[in-house]
């Protein structure tokens, strides 16, 4: 089995590509079920956030699986592979493991150390479990990833700066408005992202929070949390008139706020400056809005650039975290490699046990007068012999596991003892989630 990560993120793909490839949360279940029908892919999960679209998969024939998955992505998003293939990265084996761990630990995030990604991975994993798309490898991989993320968070200072999209937004707002004490925020969309960002702005001293949402009830509920004020979606302009900071994060497939509308609003506001933060993918606000005087528009990619400027402080902590991730990668890879040896060992034991049982039965049938005690002795004797014989080779196999020569020995054993078919028989066992390893998180 080979572990594969294929995908793109904010570093390799512009927002225009990401927004077209992103999966809605509601469709991931169905998509996963379809992905399971790809014969080359044994296990899979889809991580789709604002900044990345990635498939984690385990496959027997890696190359075929990669082709299948690429084709699958293209087909599903109605794009030709040509359009986004150059933005894709493909990682396998150890590299893939490291990548997953780094993503979960928020080392690969746009804002390094931001905590949201872990929750996003957890829910992506849960969806995969629910669609029965994940098996032994992904179970183990993800649980260890959660464990790594926890270690990184507690053992380094990476999360101490409370960096996130919202943090950057506050910094920018201060460069425009100096301080936020008398400022009014308008949230468009009542989703989790908005809520989080709003919390940050409120703690930075914002005076009032207005919330508007297509579903008025959700706007009202979120507004209540901030002792704010809900605004009916149709009356959004009223909110735009009053707000100093507008944060938009709706699931709207097209622009919600357009250049002309904002230009009119600015006239009515007597040019009072306004700061738009568009954290939606696909974007909610037409990019040319930024050209209007006294309007400042930042989308996720723009925030990224700001983040890059601040990133140096966190680099030291990230290096520490990377060393820690490396430890865990080694652990995982060692386990992962036993996957190749384990079925061989199991098959070898089974083969010896078969021989022992056959010969024992033959002998016992020649001596029907033996007492129960004598029969038990013979049973114990033969078992002991088999175990003694196997002990050396098996210890050797486990010890040298991962060496260059392992494959050679495995191959030899399988040929000498005629073990070829066993691997497939054992597969059933491996598809059961190993409950024992789930306690790690």
């Amino acid at each position, binding site marked *: 089995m080979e572990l594969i990560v294929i995908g793109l993120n904010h570093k390799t793909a512009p927002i225009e590509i990401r927004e077209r490839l992103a999966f809605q949360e509601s469709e991931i279940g169905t998509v996963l079920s379809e992905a399971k029908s790809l014969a080359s892919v044994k296990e899979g999960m889809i991580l789709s956030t604002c900044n990345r679209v990635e498939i984690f998969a385990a496959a027997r024939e890696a190359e075929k699986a990669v082709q299948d998955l690429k084709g699958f992505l293209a087909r599903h998003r109605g794009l030709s592979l040509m359009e986004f293939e150059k933005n894709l990265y493909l990682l396998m084996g150890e590299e893939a493991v490291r990548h997953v761990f780094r993503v979960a630990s928020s080392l690969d995030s746009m804002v390094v150390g931001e905590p949201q990604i872990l929750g996003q991975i957890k829910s992506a994993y849960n969806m995969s479990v629910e669609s029965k798309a994940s098996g032994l490898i992904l179970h183990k991989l993800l649980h260890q990833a959660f464990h790594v993320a926890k270690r990184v968070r507690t053992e380094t200072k990476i999360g101490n700066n409370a960096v996130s999209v919202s943090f950057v937004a506050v910094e920018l707002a201060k460069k425009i*408005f*100096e301080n936020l004490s008398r400022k009014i925020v308008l949230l468009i969309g009542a989703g989790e992202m908005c809520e989080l960002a709003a919390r940050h702005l409120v703690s930075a001293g914002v005076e009032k929070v207005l919330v508007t949402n297509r579903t008025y009830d959700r706007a009202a509920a979120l507004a209540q949390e901030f002792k704010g004020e809900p605004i009916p979606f149709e009356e959004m302009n009223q909110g735009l008139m009053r707000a100093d900071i507008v944060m938009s994060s709706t699931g709207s497939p097209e622009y919600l706020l357009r250049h002309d509308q904002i230009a009119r609003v600015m006239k009515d506001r007597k*040019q009072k400056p306004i700061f738009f933060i568009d954290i939606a993918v696909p974007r909610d606000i037409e990019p040319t809005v930024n050209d209007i005087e006294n309007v400042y528009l930042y989308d996720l990619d723009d925030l990224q650039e700001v983040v890059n400027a601040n990133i140096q402080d966190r680099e030291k902590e990230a290096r520490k975290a990377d060393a820690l991730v490396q430890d865990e990668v080694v652990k995982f890879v060692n386990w992962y490699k036993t996957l190749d040896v384990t079925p061989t060992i199991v098959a070898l034991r089974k083969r010896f046990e078969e021989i022992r049982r056959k010969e024992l039965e033959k002998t016992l049938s020649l001596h029907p007068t033996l007492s129960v005690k004598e029969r038990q002795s013979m049973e114990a004797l033969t078992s002991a012999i088999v175990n003694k014989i196997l002990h050396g080779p098996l210890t050797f196999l486990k010890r040298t596991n991962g060496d260059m020569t392992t494959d050679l020995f495995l191959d030899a054993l399988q040929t000498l003892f005629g073990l070829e078919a066993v691997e497939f028989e054992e597969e059933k066992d491996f598809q059961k989630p190993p409950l024992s390893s789930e306690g790690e998180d």
Partner: protein
Amino acid sequence: MNIHFFQFASLFYLLGTLASLVYIISLKETFSKLAAVVISTGFASHTLALLMRYVEAGHTPVTNLYESLSFFAWMIIGVLLIVNLKYRVKVLSSFITPIALIMMIFALALPKEILPLAPVLKSFWHPFHIIFAFLGNAIFTLAFCCGVMYLIQEHQLKSKKMGAIAKRLPPLKVLDDLNYQSLTFGFPLLTLGIITGAIWAEYAWGRYWSWDPKETWSLITWFFYAAMLHQRLTLGWRGRKAATMAIIGFLAVLFTFLGVNLLLPGLHSYANW
């Protein structure tokens, strides 16, 4: 003697400029404080030079270009020190002090002897006219610097380059507020300068207004700032537009102050060198 204090002030403005430039590059607090101390010392020395000259001459020592430049620079530094008390925009001195320094250097190259004041100019109104006009000009210089900083900072924000420059410049709100404040102080002062000038002219020449180039250009400048104030109050012209206007307005001020003297002969040209 007053010349020595003037040279001393120039030297300190030079050191102050250097310290504030080092501050804006290194962002080390020490240099900001050092600059403040050095510039204040220079200002004290400069004040002393002006007082001594006043006593020596027996009239407000703003009668030729050397004295005008010196007085202008003194006002600019004074405005900087007052603004710094209230706003603490530390990088402001990195922009304003060099302007004062250039004026000082320019003045250093000019003849400095005290000339007797022409009898027509001896008037109760003379110092008022001078103080209002130059204080107004100094405040417009402040607005000019804020305008320049605003345009740079706005460009950083719009083009999403939140790097070293953006980090060093004040928030847009602060710059725009300062610009507006400058206008609300500078415009009345300019108005008073023109009115006292007219009254003085009535005493000196028997006419309130002679349409000499200085007067004409003052009026043009006045109309420009009046328009700027009007647009701001009625149409909300702030931010980039206000910043740009502050810059253009300052160019008009400079021309009225220097260009007219150097290029267009007229009644005010006795204030040449």
